[in-house]
């Protein structure tokens, strides 16, 4: 007897709808067991993790703040992943965007410039992210180098580049030797939505981005091309779609969105450039993209859910003395279940008696 994977005659519509929910349910059960092993009451723990943040106004605002970069990067990555193009360097594009936008803020710091500074910073951030993302795209199109490996390697190059700037030329001379730039001027800061809250205008921006990407995917030729290349690459080639152009386009858009997320994060909740501006948003956004089924609205929900795990994890650390590392365990397990459940849309597992199975299977 053995288990084998078998392609379904057609995609299972039921599983397609329920798979994220099944994955989340399985993750909650696994986490409950893990809490029990750690000697905590699973029900209380899950309550602290997932319910309490939702009834506390401060935590709700924090969830929106955390979800903003995750969703913005995630929808961009979805464009790539739908077309089977693998940009996994969003973390690097996020950092480069933050650096490029911050350049203007640092240069104009303390001078009396107009309100054009912030829009210009956002533009520079998106441009920097897009250009940085085009490096692996061009390497793939021109030389056939795997974009998976190059985009990943460039993450670390970006990280060290930013580290150099904030420790060296851009360091705030009045900053008591901390590796940060001077705080950005008010004109170079993303305005907050509610007085005294960290909730900022970038969250509105991300909603617009989600809508734009949804329109791009569902209502334009480019969106059709992206979906076609992903679903039927041969058919796309025969119908004359240019695969190289698509690589460049999806990388540029996802890079621009990651870069925009980077500068919004720096000019919004943080307020200055420093070495650890990202707790791995660019990588977590990959989970978000898959959890959201590569669908813009789905990604919005998935981003809020992942943000909830960050905030819940911080709350649980304080309230229940559980390690913060649990959040990462949680996110890893969640992605495993999501991917496994997604596989069941296209395949099914069958039990086959070994006598009928070919000898080499």
């Amino acid at each position: 007897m053995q288990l084998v994977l078998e392609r379904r005659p057609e995609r299972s519509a039921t599983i397609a709808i329920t798979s994220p929910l099944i994955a989340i349910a399985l993750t909650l059960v696994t986490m409950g067991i893990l809490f029990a092993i750690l000697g905590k009451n699973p029900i209380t723990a899950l309550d602290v993790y997932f319910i309490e943040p939702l009834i506390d106004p401060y935590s709700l605002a924090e969830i929106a703040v955390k979800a903003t970069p995750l969703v913005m990067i995630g929808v961009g990555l979805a464009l790539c992943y739908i077309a089977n193009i693998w940009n996994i360097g969003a973390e690097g594009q996020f950092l480069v965007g933050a650096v490029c936008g911050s350049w203007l803020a640092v240069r104009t710091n303390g001078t009396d410039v107009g309100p054009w500074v912030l829009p210009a910073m956002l533009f520079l951030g998106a441009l920097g992210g897009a250009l940085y993302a085009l490096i692996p795209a061009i390497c793939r199109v021109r030389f056939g180098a795997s974009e998976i490996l190059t985009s990943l390697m460039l993450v670390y190059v970006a990280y060290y580049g930013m580290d150099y700037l904030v420790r060296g030329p851009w360091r705030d001379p009045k900053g008591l030797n901390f590796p940060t730039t001077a705080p950005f001027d008010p004109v170079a800061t993303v305005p907050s939505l509610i007085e005294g809250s960290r909730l900022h205008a970038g969250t509105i921006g991300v909603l617009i981005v989600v809508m734009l990407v949804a329109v791009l995917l569902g209502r334009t030729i480019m969106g059709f091309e992206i979906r076609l290349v992903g679903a039927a690459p041969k058919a796309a080639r025969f119908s004359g779609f240019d695969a190289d152009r698509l690589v460049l386009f999806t990388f540029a858009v996802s890079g621009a969105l990651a870069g925009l997320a980077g500068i919004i994060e720096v000019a919004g909740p943080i307020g200055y450039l420093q070495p650890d501006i990202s707790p791995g948003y660019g990588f977590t956004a990959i989970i978000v993209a898959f959890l959201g089924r590569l669908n813009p609205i789905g990604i919005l929900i998935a981003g809020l859910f992942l943000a909830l795990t960050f905030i819940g994890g911080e709350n649980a650390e304080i309230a229940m003395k559980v390690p913060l590392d649990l959040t990462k365990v949680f996110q890893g397990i969640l992605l495993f279940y999501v991917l496994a459940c997604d596989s069941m849309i296209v395949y099914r597992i069958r039990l086959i008696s070994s006598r009928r199975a070919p000898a080499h299977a």
Partner: protein
Amino acid sequence: MLDAIVEIFKLILSVNFILTVITASTPLLLAASGELVAERSGVLNLGVEGMMIMGAACGFAGAYMSDSTLVGAICGIIAGVAMAAIFGVLTLGLAVNQVATGLALTILGTGLSGLIGAGFVGQRIEPSPQLHLPFLTDLPIVGRILFGQDAFVYFSIALVIAIWLFLYRTRAGLVLRAVGDNHTSAHALGYPVLKIRMLAVLFGGACAGLAGAFLPLAYTPFFIPGMTAGRGWIALALVVFASWRPGRLVAGAYLFGAVTFLQLSVQGLGLGIPPQVMSSLPYLATVVVLVLISRTRGTAGSAAPASLGVVFVPDR
């Protein structure tokens, strides 16, 4: 400026430098050897960092509780294999995307190792003993370099030689390379593609786990969360840098090891080279090498296993 260059040369030629580079390179070489075999079978496991850090946490836990380096190393290997098994079941058993699964493995490993290692932070163990042969180890210059290392170092070199012999001088190695280059043909010839890949992935996990265990067992005698500090990603880069060949892997590992060590010393010499430039060199070099090998070998980049990262579901 000239003085500084002379200083660098003096430094590179010193025995201490070579000893330090060997120590810094060994975990890279161990982890990359395993990943090389997995990638040669057509599986791209981006979870090396996660498997390594689990190897470090479990390796330290094992060594601390048993007072034995060997037990620690075995615990590290088991942890790496267990992590690789998760990856294998998902990507090979359930045909899940390898890139996403590998990244999830790293996220999981980082978190889980923090949980496991939390109780051991601040504890110390006896570092792994170094070889001491009477007379030979006391030879000037070469003595300590050749005959004064710990077991991990000798093992890593033996491992690469064994992998080379396996890949290029045995039938099983040929089959593994065939599976990595064209899984459809290998399947048609009757080779169990998924089984071979599973074994290669588990071997990769064992090596990554051992590489992680090396850090608290031989490098520093204690465990710190996140102590792999990106070495898993460098190992991944190293496999590409070596264009999937064991021989070049050794050269690359020692080169990367030297670069990471130089970043500390160059700072002290006041050459004006920021340490961040040195830190990013391995990654930049890997991008350049990848572009070069992809370009010279045609667009498919035949230096890379042709089926690398491609999902395979046998039809029947």
